[in-house]
């Protein structure tokens, strides 16, 4: 392990060997992480008989029947729509509520709100489920978009605020001061100066919030019925009655994970910073 670039003048062949060995190491590290996804996609392309073959098959003739079944026979489009609406709604709402809050915490020291957000991030989702269930029952909102979006706020709001606090803190004070001097109201400073400067963090916050809301299982498990069920709960349908439909399960799992993986490609540079923002600073 070298922490600095190698210096001196090593002979080319030895260096090439050492480099090759290094790259092999890198690949070896990456393989386990990718393998599971590879196996998932493969499983979706196998028939039931191929999936339960022993020893496991790596080479086989693929079939698209599982993927077709997932879409056609299982109302997958409806569930995708539900997931989009819920996660999209929860993320937008989190932005509307969280951006002003984060700015206030960064600039105006609203410690109480900050503490509340921290508490929200810590508490296990389970502790919300019973109260929300009983509340939404009384309101008759079970299995509606309203109920799910409000509940998912518990997930998206802390993420948005947490990331944006760090981002707003990074906006140079001089920039904001200059705008104030020019007679901008605080609100205008916020919307015209601070926000645009934090564009990238904003994108990260939005996408991360969306992803974690998309992935959530427990809220949909308890608070939805057939109409507004989201994808993670729908994938459960594949532990079917007659045999465990491994092909269908794998195909469904692939379809659920795919949008997320695509989104990640857009923001991969900023994810880590996003996930730990506000933590590395004090």
């Amino acid at each position: 392990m070298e922490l600095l670039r190698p210096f001196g003048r090593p002979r080319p062949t030895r260096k090439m060997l050492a480099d090759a060995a290094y790259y092999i190491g890198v690949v070896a590290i990456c393989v386990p992480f990718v393998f599971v996804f590879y196996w998932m996609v493969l499983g979706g392309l196998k028939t039931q008989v191929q999936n339960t073959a022993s020893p496991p098959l790596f080479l086989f003739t693929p079939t698209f029947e599982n993927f077709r079944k997932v879409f056609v026979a299982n109302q997958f489009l409806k569930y995708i729509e539900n997931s989009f609406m819920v996660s999209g709604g929860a993320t937008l709402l989190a932005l509307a509520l969280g951006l002003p809050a984060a700015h206030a915490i960064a600039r105006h020291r609203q410690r109480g709100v900050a503490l509340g957000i921290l508490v929200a991030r810590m508490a296990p989702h389970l502790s919300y489920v019973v109260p929300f269930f009983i509340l939404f029952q009384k309101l008759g909102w079970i299995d509606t978009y309203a109920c799910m979006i409000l509940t998912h706020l518990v997930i998206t709001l802390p993420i948005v605020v947490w990331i944006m606090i760090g981002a707003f803190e990074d906006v140079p004070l001089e920039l904001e001061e200059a705008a104030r001097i020019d007679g901008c109201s605080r609100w205008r400073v916020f919307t015209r100066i601070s926000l645009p400067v934090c564009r990238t963090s904003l994108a990260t916050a939005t996408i991360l919030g969306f992803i974690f809301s998309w992935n959530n299982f427990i809220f949909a498990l308890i608070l939805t019925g057939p109409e507004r069920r989201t994808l993670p709960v729908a994938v459960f349908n594949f532990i079917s009655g007659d045999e465990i439909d491994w092909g269908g399960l794998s195909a469904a799992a692939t379809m659920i994970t795919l949008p997320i993986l695509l989104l990640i490609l857009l923001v991969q540079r900023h994810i880590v910073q996003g996930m730990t923002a506000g933590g590395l600073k004090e």
Partner: protein
Amino acid sequence: MATQIHSEASPPRASAPGEFLERHFGRLLPLPAALSIAALIIFPLAFNIYMSLQAWFVSSTTPPAFVGLKNYVEIFGKDARFWNALWVTVKFTTVSVVLQLALGLAIAVYLHREFHGRGLVRTVMLLPMVSTPVAVALIWVIMFNPSLGILNYFLACLGLKPLLWLGHPRTALPSLILMDTWKWTPFMVLILHSGLQSLPITPFEAARIDGASRWQTFRYVTLPLLRPSIAVSLIFRTMDSLKTFDTIYVMTEGGPNNATEILNIYTFQTGFKYFHIGYASALAVILVLFVFAVNLLLIKLRERSWSY
């Protein structure tokens, strides 16, 4: 009057609401969020505490009955399953986080070098972290299958005996820890990697000049300098690990024989399988307090590590 530099930001018309906003900006801005937090967090917490003092079985013929602290007394005094759940939670979180930290550190250090395809590797690292837990958990269940799963096949290829993985109380929790490690080690790798990137060069130069070996450099220079990153990664990972639910519920539902039943799952079963809502609320309160205590402890520890 100074000339306007920013032409888009023209001065607002003086209006009463505008002025009110101006003056109380700091306090008004977070108001919507604060109200949502009150509704979303304080309400459930308060409700849980209220319900925990009742005994209720969600039947429409018997209304909730106030029993004071009876639920808590029973949980701490007579509920062996509760203590088991607590212990399993501690085991799961500690082993997972430590394992992920160690592996993450090793990988981060290994990858701390200029090489082609760095961006690609970073993308690969992200995949497990952001993938939908329920979906990948079910794939892992397929891979863990003792007769048909690919993991036993790999073991056989290496000449090792097949394992029962999720099928035996003694191997179930390690299997879950393995899966969790697969999912979250990249998180540690990425944090520690950024940490490494931001380290100053000077201490390393000094170490090289002093003739320190690689291991010595690592132990006496890298590690201490990385302490803040390590602390941050520990805190975030522990916070999230204590919230684990989806993967364990889907893979073992707390079995076999409660070997993987973390407190989260035990509370869920009590509430949504047996419908002892009062008892479950008490468990939920205890769970939340426990999580807060652990997080607070870690944060305090970190504050102390800042001074070195």
